[in-house]
């Protein structure tokens, strides 16, 4: 059941099907785009948003960051992002005080719920910024997570 391959581009395998969905308008147009290097190298939130083509984010109460207020260790901070905004097609997760802001971008194809969870590194106590794209509009929410010092400090 388990298969391993070393193909560089996933399109080789599934390109046909994906292209068909993209043509049918079921995927965000840039879902097939290569890894967005400029966005992941962004050193501040505006630059990162610009590289992601996300303009004028508006605070939204329908976008939520689910996380503990305090992380016992910054190496692993569990973060869940839930959007209740209809037609959410993209979710981005940024950490204000990391050397590079952008941690992850999720495309939300037809059928996927705009509800994702992952674990990220935080260098220090910081704001977490989530951004969601829905119906051509950009929504955002911010939340602070404290990173504590742990262990015996040695």
């Amino acid at each position, binding site marked *: 059941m388990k298969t391993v391959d070393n193909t560089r581009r996933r399109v080789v395998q599934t390109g046909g099907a994906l292209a068909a969905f993209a043509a049918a308008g079921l995927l965000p147009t840039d879902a097939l785009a290569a890894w967005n290097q400029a966005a992941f190298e962004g050193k501040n939130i505006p630059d990162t948003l610009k590289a992601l083509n996300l303009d004028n984010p508006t605070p939204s109460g329908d976008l939520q960051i689910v996380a503990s207020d305090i992380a016992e260790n910054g190496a692993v901070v569990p973060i869940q992002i839930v959007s209740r905004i209809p037609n959410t097609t993209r979710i981005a997760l940024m950490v204000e005080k990391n050397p590079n802001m952008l941690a992850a971008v999720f495309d939300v194809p037809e059928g996927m719920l705009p509800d994702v969870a992952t674990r990220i590194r935080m260098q220090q106590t910081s704001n977490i910024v989530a951004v969601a794209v829905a119906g051509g509009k950009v929504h955002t929410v911010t939340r602070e997570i404290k990173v504590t010092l742990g262990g015996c*400090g040695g």
Partner: protein
Amino acid sequence: MKKPILAAVAATAFLAFAAPATAQTAWGPGADDAAFQAMLRASFRERPGAPLTRLEQDPVQAFCSDPAASQSRAAAATAERLERENFAAVKFPADGQFLGDWRRGEAIAQSGRGLTWTDGANQANGGNCYNCHQISEAEISFGTIGPSLLGYGKLRGNTPEVQRTTWAKIWNSKSSNACSNMPRAGHMGILTEAQIKDIMALLLDPQSPVNK
């Protein structure tokens, strides 16, 4: 602090200390001194910065390694004697100045580094203070093995007597409580005199966040 009755104790101290190992109460079968020492020798290896001599106990360590015995009423006199001996070994600052810089003190209190086999020889030792104590209110990550030191100077004042008592406690915690969980920062060479002055300032300086 108990007042030392020096002369009387010196003699008994010597007697009890002639053979600390035999003072051990009985551990269960198979864990006699010889078996235990053999186990220690076979089980540990020296690493840079963490020599095997760390397993050689001083009188306080030997006494406190058998809590059933050291906490017994019969051991009270020994505990008091150990406290007096440790108190006698406290070195007060040569220049009479007890307080350094509380900002440096905060950094020392935060640091848990030093004297492990993963610390370099040039690593400045930390005080490990926050591991066990609440100290300044801004640091929410603090331990609870020791009491909260929040408002330490505000509650006690910054009198010469408080300074001496606090210094003795930090330099050698066993000077007032033979089996205190707190390391003997000065006595064991963990912190320098200058570092202890900085810790003192963190606790007693009215400008320190501890006393705000």
